[in-house]
């Protein structure tokens, strides 16, 4: 029991909080240099492939997912425990302090950091009443005592401090709620096609543990057109300049509403956000088999592999007879062939071309097994070759048709753009936002409110009324304490100060202002 108490005392001490903050800062560093799986899984697998030994150790230490790792969670949870353990007792202390009148007037006011004294012509009650009025006008809380007034202001400082710290608990709550109840899905939609908000439609979907599929609002988005423009000038050539998707959204049974989605302007439908997070090209390809039947026709999504949208994709024609046909290759929006081979040199479709090879094999039995639309299962396929035995490879510009050795044809009639939409709902985010605002407000109070205590004692002696005022700052960065003390003495009727009060006032030194009026 004793060690538990010791542990708790240690955990909630300011020194521990300080060390934990340090560790948190250090712990956050590796994630900014080591590729992170949740951010970029491809870079992680590349890293492991390049450094197998190191990669294994990184994996064991959780360095590929620092911010989701147990040790990172341990640091911030300890910090939170320390925060709660530190702040909760302070709430009780504060609650008592707020209800307690200012502390009693000390016996020796002249020992305070600032004091002033003098003689007043007013009577004792009048002087005290005047001093109290002056203090109240300056929002001091006062306590009338026998021959003295005690005053304090700046209670909001500790209030702000508590609010600031508690808002982090609220923030964690908001984020946890959001993690549990939110969902985020991504879907690629080719221009002219539509997307219905339904689990089966998503290419990628992640949701929290508390997610229920009925949370998906049943709307449909028709992507009518997508406009992309890029810098064509010499500076930043190829940089994105505008992305805009013209869409119509419709609730079931309702008339579609036209709107646009841009990069900083997500669409909000029914509490669901629809962001435009990517785009690419979909060449329109028609494969006609040797019998003259169209085996497949339509836009095919190719995935960009570099900043100039050299895009990789496959076209499958499972219905082609006598053989199953599949095409594999590149769509290059601005095609150039040089020593690097074919590649794109500009992200816009200025000189679009297709570079394809052909795979063929026996027709496959239709199974319901899922199959990637971005790669070919080449198990029983062979690359088609010419009569001379060279692999069939061809290059097509829009509108061109190529005849394959087996008698089938491939037509590249046109290209379209596709957009990647992210559909997300984040129900807990408002709470996180509110807690941040509270944190900033609390921080402001705790940093800028400067608590101060002032006292004034008035005593009749030998027919004269003597006034002594003194003051104490409860923060080490306040200024103007001397001014306040002198003004308080004057408010009590002192016309001439007995002595110039000495005051330790750093403000005076810094800002060239004497602390004494």
């Amino acid at each position, binding site marked *: 029991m004793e060690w538990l108490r010791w542990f708790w005392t240690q955990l909630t001490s300011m020194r521990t909080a300080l060390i934990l903050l340090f560790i948190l800062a250090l712990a956050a560093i590796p994630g900014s240099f080591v590729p992170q799986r949740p951010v970029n899984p491809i870079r992680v697998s590349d890293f492991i492939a390049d450094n197998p030994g190191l990669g294994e150790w990184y994996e064991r230490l959780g360095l590929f997912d620092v911010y989701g790792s147990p040790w990172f969670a341990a640091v911030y949870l300890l910090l939170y425990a320390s925060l709660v353990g530190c702040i909760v007792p302070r709430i009780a202390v504060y609650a008592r302090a707020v209800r307690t009148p200012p502390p009693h007037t000390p016996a020796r006011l002249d020992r305070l950091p600032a004091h002033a004294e003098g003689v007043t012509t007013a009577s004792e009650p009048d002087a005290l009443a005047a001093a109290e009025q002056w203090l109240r006008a300056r929002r001091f809380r006062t306590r009338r005592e026998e021959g003295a007034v005690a005053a304090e202001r700046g209670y909001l400082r500790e209030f702000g401090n508590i609010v600031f710290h508690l808002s982090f608990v609220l923030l964690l709550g908001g984020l946890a709620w959001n993690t549990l109840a939110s969902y985020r899905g991504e879907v690629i939609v080719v221009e002219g096609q539509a997307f219905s908000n339904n689990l089966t439609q998503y290419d990628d979907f992640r949701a929290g543990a508390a997610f229920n599929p009925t949370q998906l609002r049943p709307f449909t988005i028709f992507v009518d057109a997508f406009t992309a423009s890029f810098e064509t000038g010499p500076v930043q050539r190829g940089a994105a300049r505008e992305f805009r998707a013209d869409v119509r959204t419709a609730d079931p049974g309702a008339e579609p509403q036209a709107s646009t989605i841009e990069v900083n302007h*997500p669409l909000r439908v029914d509490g669901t956000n629809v962001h435009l997070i990517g785009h690419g090209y979909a060449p329109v390809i028609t494969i006609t088999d040797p019998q003259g039947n169209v085996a497949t026709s339509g836009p095919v999504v190719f995935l960009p592999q570099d900043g100039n949208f050299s895009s990789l994709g496959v076209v499958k024609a499972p219905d082609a007879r006598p053989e199953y046909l599949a095409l594999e290759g590149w769509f290059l929006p601005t095609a150039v062939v040089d020593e690097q081979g074919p590649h794109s040199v500009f992200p816009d479709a200025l000189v679009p071309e297709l570079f394809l090879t052909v795979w063929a094999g026996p027709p496959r039995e239709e199974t319901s097994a899922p199959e990637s639309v971005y790669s070919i299962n080449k198990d029983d396929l062979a690359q088609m070759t010419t009569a001379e035995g060279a692999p069939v490879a061809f290059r097509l510009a829009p509108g061109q048709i190529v005849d394959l050795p087996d008698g089938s044809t491939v037509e590249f009639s046109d290209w379209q753009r596709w957009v990647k939409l992210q559909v997300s709902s984040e129900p807990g985010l408002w709470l996180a936002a509110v807690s941040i605002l509270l944190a900033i407000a609390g*921080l402001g109070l705790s940093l800028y409110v400067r608590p101060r205590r002032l006292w004034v004692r008035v005593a009749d002696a030998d027919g004269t009324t003597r006034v002594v005022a003194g003051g104490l700052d409860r923060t080490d960065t306040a200024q103007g304490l001397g001014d306040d003390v002198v003004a308080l003495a004057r408010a009590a009727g002192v016309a001439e100060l007995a002595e110039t009060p000495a005051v330790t006032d750093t403000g005076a030194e810094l800002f060239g202002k004497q602390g004494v009026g």
Partner: protein
Amino acid sequence: MESWSNLAMVTSWVIYLLAMCAHAVEWASARSAAPAAEPVLVAAGSGRAAPEPEHGASEPARSPSEPVRVDLFGRIGLALTFIGLLTHLIGVVLRGVAADRFPWGNMYEFTTTTLLLAAATHLLLATRFGMRWLGLPVTLLLTVGQGLAVTVFYVAVAPLVPALHSVWFIVHIIAAAIAGAAFNLGAIASILYLVRDRAERRGRVGGYVDKLPSARALDVFAHRIHAFAFPLWTFTIAAGAVWADYAWGRFWGWDPKETWSLITWVVYAAYLHARATAGWKGRRAAWLAVLGVATFWFNFVGINLLVTGLHSYAGI
């Protein structure tokens, strides 16, 4: 327009360099003057309260000629900084005109704007509050920063990528620039505190160090700047998160820039806690402030140049 902006920026760099030289001569002259006794400071402090502080005789009487020379070069330094600030301002404004937007779209533009704010704050503090002792370190910062900007960070004017087309572009970046300027000034104050504190503890307060306020006053000044900058930095991160939610569809994604801005935040949070912790007050807290500005600079320079992330714009 762009070339005028560039000319103004380079000119301001040269003028800041000259201002730094003037301040260096100022302090070198002060150094050759005999080390004064400790209480001189109080007199210097009250001297600064004169109606015209820039002409105020902030020099305590020593030998007849030295203070005159010290003061003269100090005033030359301030005047040069002011001229540098004007050309700097022209450079930033013309950059915005040339780009037809707020000039905060890349590293070059952010650096020049932040330094402009730092220079303006310094001049305000020096002329209105008599804090001329900031002259040498601030002009050093301005010279190095502006030099880096015009040589290493420079990129030609270009429009913004769609991700930056947002009202949060203004809110997030101006908050970051003000907080950044304040962090830099705060670090300068903390470094001066460390210098002064060391001299006071060794009982050797002379030359430049003698003209600094007391270690305690410097500590208070550093705390005030950080107390201003920290809430603003909190807001910068929050505004960035809101913007990220609009632009990228998530409010926080552990992008390297986001991670490092959080690290900076945590270090400054530690600084504020340290000031209230026995054994951490004073020197250790000041070192934390220096560490804080180091993380800020690393986030700005290191992360932009070493790591690719979502905050990589315009190739730099």
